[in-house]
């Protein structure tokens, strides 16, 4: 008898698995908003704290999923239609793609546009637009190109270097027994190389100004242009004067790259990174403004001394349900943004969100909100194939396996293909 029913067990297993698969898709509940974003761990907690008051007020719930591969999820979701209600968008380039594909919903009737434009830096408002419609809002901003230093080695707060030459001479004068002038680390898993692209962007912005910068990421300036080469050459100089050299730079995780500042004797004098670095590596355990501090990236060409590079987390809406609209409207308001910045590490694009935990973040937040010439992270604005090649060639260049000219030539070859209008 038992023999006759042997086939039954595997069938039951298969049946149960199928049942589990079949019912795990989220149900279209009117009181639930599904959200995916890149924030995990502490950032996820901060986001959930931010939506808590909205949940209490409206009785709706937010179903949040944090993932690092948001790009892949949305790229697969847009053609198939399997999308969350709200999602973090990888960058303005992808936002435009999704809007053109009809997947993203315009926000002009969702937001309180007058208040939003009034409270937000115009550069960031414009980056959220496709044509004259708003499709994305910056829920979180970042300031790129801060030069961190250990105050115990030397405190630069009294006379922060205003020019690049000043930075090099002050750094060399105060280097003491530090092993090198710079610390750099560009390892970041799948996105390895991005900190090096930030370096190039910061240099290019100060050397050649916002117009060249914006033409460059839009594919209108060739990679082999002398202006771009000048930026790469200066970056290469930085690597030649870095702790452990190019090999170590390539092997070092960006989160830990600044740690040698605090070694004894110090590994380096300076470390360039965005404002969010203050929550990573050894910086997280130390006090901003006391144990370490940072000054803005100095001017190289005095004409462009006011230019600032930043980035941010764009947010867009894929399903215009009432709950999703209401959440979207809430997220950009000053009270919501206040909760976000209070948690630390985040800057707000909203001028009226000022509850920063320390002066370090407050200054960085003010720099973003009041920037005269604000440019967005160029690599994030490039077509994704260009961006990936930029990252990857920065790794090869930094490790020394490619020269500046080889890297630029290879990047131009990618650009010739990546900027081609879609057939």
């Amino acid at each position: 008898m038992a023999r006759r029913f042997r086939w039954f067990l595997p069938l039951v297993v298969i049946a149960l698995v199928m049942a589990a698969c079949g019912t795990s898709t989220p149900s279209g509940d009117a009181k639930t908003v599904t959200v995916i974003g890149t924030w995990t761990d502490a950032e996820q907690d901060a986001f959930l704290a931010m939506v808590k008051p909205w949940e209490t007020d409206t009785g709706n719930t937010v179903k949040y999923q944090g993932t690092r591969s948001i790009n892949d999820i949305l790229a697969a979701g847009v053609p198939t239609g399997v999308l969350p209600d709200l999602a973090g968008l990888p960058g303005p380039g992808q936002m435009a793609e999704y809007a053109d594909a009809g997947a993203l919903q315009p926000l002009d009737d969702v937001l309180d546009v007058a208040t939003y434009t009034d409270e937000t830096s115009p550069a960031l408002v414009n980056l959220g637009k496709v044509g004259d419609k708003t499709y994305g809002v910056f829920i979180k901003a970042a300031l790129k190109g801060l030069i961190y230093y250990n105050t115990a080695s030397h405190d630069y707060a009294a006379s922060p270097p205003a020019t690049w030459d000043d930075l090099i001479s002050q750094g060399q004068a105060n280097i003491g027994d530090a092993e090198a002038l710079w610390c750099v680390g560009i390892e970041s898993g799948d996105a390895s190389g991005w900190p090096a692209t930030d370096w190039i962007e910061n240099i290019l912005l100060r050397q050649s100004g916002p117009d060249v910068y914006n033409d460059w990421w839009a594919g209108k300036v060739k990679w082999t242009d002398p202006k771009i080469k000048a930026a790469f050459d200066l970056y290469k100089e930085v690597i030649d004067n870095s702790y452990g050299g190019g090999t170590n730079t390539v092997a070092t995780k960006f989160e830990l790259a600044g740690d040698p500042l605090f070694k004894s004797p110090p590994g380096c004098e300076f470390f360039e990174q965005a404002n969010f670095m203050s929550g990573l590596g050894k910086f997280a355990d130390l006090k901003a403004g006391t144990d370490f501090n940072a000054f803005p990236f100095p001017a190289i060409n005095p004409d462009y001394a006011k230019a600032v590079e930043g980035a941010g987390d764009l947010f867009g809406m894929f399903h215009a349900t009432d709950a999703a609209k209401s959440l979207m409207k809430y997220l950009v308001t000053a009270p919501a943004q206040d909760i976000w910045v209070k948690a630390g590490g985040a800057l707000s694009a909203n001028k009226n969100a000022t509850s920063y935990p320390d002066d370090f973040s407050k200054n960085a937040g003010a720099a973003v909100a009041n920037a005269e010439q604000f440019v967005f992270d160029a690599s994030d604005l490039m077509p994704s194939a260009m961006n990936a090649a930029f990252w990857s060639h920065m790794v090869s260049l930094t490790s020394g396996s490619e020269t500046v000219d080889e890297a630029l030539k290879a990047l131009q070859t990618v650009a010739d293909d990546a900027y081609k209008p879609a057939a």
Partner: protein
Amino acid sequence: MTDKLITAAIVVVGVPGVLIGYIWATEQVLRILPERRRPDIRPWLWLAPALAFLALFLVYPMIGTILRSFQDNLGKTFVGLDNFFWFFGSADALSALKNNLLWLIFLTLFVVGFGLLVAVLVDKVKYESFAKSVIFVPLAISMVAAGVIWLYMYQYKPPGAVQTGTLNAAIGVAGLGPVPWLQVEDFSVNTFMLIIVMAWMWTGFAMVIISAALKGINPELMEAARMDGATEWQVFRGIVFPLLVPTLVVVSTTMIITALKAFDVVFTMTSGNLNTNVIANEMYAEMFKFGQYGRASAIAVVLLLAIIPIMFFNIGRFRAQEAVR
């Protein structure tokens, strides 16, 4: 929750019900036919559901992929062989193809070589099953986890700093290094480091299969040779190895296919940077990162064309072996 339970119940009762119903229905159909023809047709009717699933989940996507490989990135217009021209004209894709060739040759050599060595050696000791278990364990680890483990093994810190990577700490004791294992592009050192990770995982697989074949060799053959004064090496070369060849061929072809499909280890450890890319990674990037469905499909087709001859060879060997039995 209750709808889930109801669905589960429907499925638990429904799926076997449908299957029993299907078999019953086929028997009813067969009754119409003359008795003589029934045995010819019955197996096909029983195979039909499986074949239908194969067609739906394997053949249909394959045809779709081949079609896509001739289309543009949005899958709207046909572009002829453009995607294939792109593949064979792109420096990155060709570098990935070259690396896959290294993977194919050296992964197979390492895995079959070490697998054979271990299988033959442990065959002669008392603690055989323990030794075999130890070597088999890595196969149970997910490839991503293995990649992460080996990242720590290969970790590099600049000279003078404390070496936290296992390998650099070990050679540091002898006053050597540190070596940036995954950052050396010359002679594809970094690719070999990745191949070693995969070989570490798959050696156990080769060992188990070769070991089983070894047990299948009639000990009287070896005894007879020894009686005639053959040395152990002569026994291995003249008797054991020739009898193992069919098994080694099967293991080798399996490893060749594994090498062509290599993805996880490269993705987790170097993301294809510094010239370590392989075609499966290239395919993933084109598809999910750049939205180039046409190009990704072209890569898939190239990969498929590379694997098909090996599959046929494998099936041929299998048939030949069956025929001997």
